[in-house]
């Protein structure tokens, strides 16, 4: 059963279509990564799902409730893309207030647990007006978690926080997934998405350009792989010339004793290795370089 389902969901701001007819399904327990350049429409899409903005057309279904988004709001947690808080309230006051608003008052122990989880313990009594950007982001995550939701929308959860906190937040997201929650997140940090997301969608100019698991995306975009073959460091000039003739149909490159060959398909690798050993050339290591999400993304 999908937890998020959209059908031809679109949004226009005064005739300018920012999200165009997106149909998407996210299953329970996924960490769904939503990528795209600045202005691609990621936030607008998330905001429609969370009730912050209203769709121009299309249909959406969260947690299998097709009547009324208001009825499931207490089961959904949201970190909006940009937020300021009430400057005169402390972090703790915020969480207390938001809990009551969502109709699920929380115990002090729960509030402390969430503050600890996001790394704000020690700052809980400070007025939020004095918080740094990263601290506000953490409070934003805390308020998304405080009512223990089943489904979480996190719009750039780690942007603007320090490296250590970012790793901490990524761990937290993985932990939440382990506890059966579904997470829908946007990010500009491709390493992070590659590391923690189970499935990825890349958005471009309001459309979903491609979607799938990391493996599927790699397969789809892997037009050429680069094979790195480590040879003996005593390889001679004439041997190199030999290899060049042997692999005349490939584009090759040398990096000292490292032979770099571009192949179209993995199946070609054994042929190359075979040809080399037939020439009596010792092979120390073979490494196939796969494109990272970054390379896939940049090719969009």
């Amino acid at each position: 059963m999908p937890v998020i389902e959209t059908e031809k969901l679109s949004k226009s701001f005064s005739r300018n279509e920012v999200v165009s007819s997106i149909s998407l399904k996210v299953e329970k327990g996924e960490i769904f990564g939503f990528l795209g350049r600045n202005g691609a429409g990621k936030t607008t899409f998330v905001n429609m799902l969370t009730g912050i903005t209203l769709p121009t057309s299309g249909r959406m279904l969260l947690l299998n409730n097709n009547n009324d988004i208001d009825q499931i709001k207490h089961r959904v947690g949201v970190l909006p893309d940009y937020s300021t808080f009430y400057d005169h309230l402390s972090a703790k006051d915020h969480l207390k207030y938001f809990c009551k608003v969502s109709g699920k008052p929380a115990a002090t122990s729960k509030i402390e647990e969430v503050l600890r989880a996001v790394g704000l313990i020690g700052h809980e009594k400070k007025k939020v007006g004095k918080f740094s950007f990263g601290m506000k982001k953490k409070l934003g995550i805390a308020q998304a978690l405080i009512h223990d939701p089943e489904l979480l929308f996190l719009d750039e959860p780690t942007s603007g926080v320090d490296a250590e906190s970012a790793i901490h937040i990524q761990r937290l997201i993985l932990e939440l997934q382990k506890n059966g929650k579904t997470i829908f997140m946007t990010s500009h940090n491709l390493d992070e998405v590659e590391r923690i997301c189970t499935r990825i969608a890349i958005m471009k100019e309001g459309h979903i350009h491609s979607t799938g698991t990391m493996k599927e995306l790699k397969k789809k975009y892997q037009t050429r792989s680069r094979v790195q073959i480590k040879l003996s460091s005593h390889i001679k000039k004439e041997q190199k010339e030999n290899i060049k003739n042997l692999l005349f149909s490939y584009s090759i490159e040398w990096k000292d004793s490292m032979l770099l060959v571009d192949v179209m398909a993995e199946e070609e690798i054994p042929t190359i290795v075979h040809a080399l050993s037939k020439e009596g050339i010792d092979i120390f290591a073979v490494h196939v370089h796969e494109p990272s999400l970054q390379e896939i993304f940049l090719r969009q």
Partner: protein
Amino acid sequence: MWAICFRECKDLFKGFKPVLIISILLGMAMVSTRLGAAFPDEIEGVTQKEMYTSGLTLTITLFGILFVFALSHSVVNKEIESKTIRFLVTKTSRNRILLGKFMGTVLFWLIIIGTCFTFITLTSRMFHLTNYIEIMIFLLYSISAAFLLSNTVPKSSQSMFIGLILALAIPGLSLWAYFSERWYIMWLKYVTPYYYTELAFPLQGVPLLFAALFIVLSLYLFKRRDF
């Protein structure tokens, strides 16, 4: 909804403006109770009982809209500006947010005017329930108008400016409309609350219909917004 209501009410008590308004209202209540005590007999149709509350009634009639607008012109648009509304809108329904805020504001004024009337009741040893209700009807009209203003004007700086002009213009123009026979101004007395305060029981409540209309309109606008 109640969380939003109590927060709104509590926040209204913060800062310099409410202190000023409360002092003015309490000050006027005190002055008029002195007046009531000094003139036990009826003067030009004004009874002693009316005298006791006259200060408060006069202040609210002249400045009620101004006070309410000063405190609540940005009740909605400020949260939209600062985007804190996103935290509320992702947690509860839009109806509950707006109605919660509305009830919080009403509660604030119930407490303020209630305090003034408690003071008057204690000094005059008379109950002034009708007067309390009259003033609250007037304030309900003003609060709903402030909500409509805050939902129509997107920026809080603009709603302050427009609110200020309206708060000064409405009493003046209504007075003109009250005495004028000219068609282009006469109608105004029927849409502002002053005219109805003179009337008897059921018609006295007409401003409440306007208040309801303003709130329904505000809800309609609020529900169609992107935040």
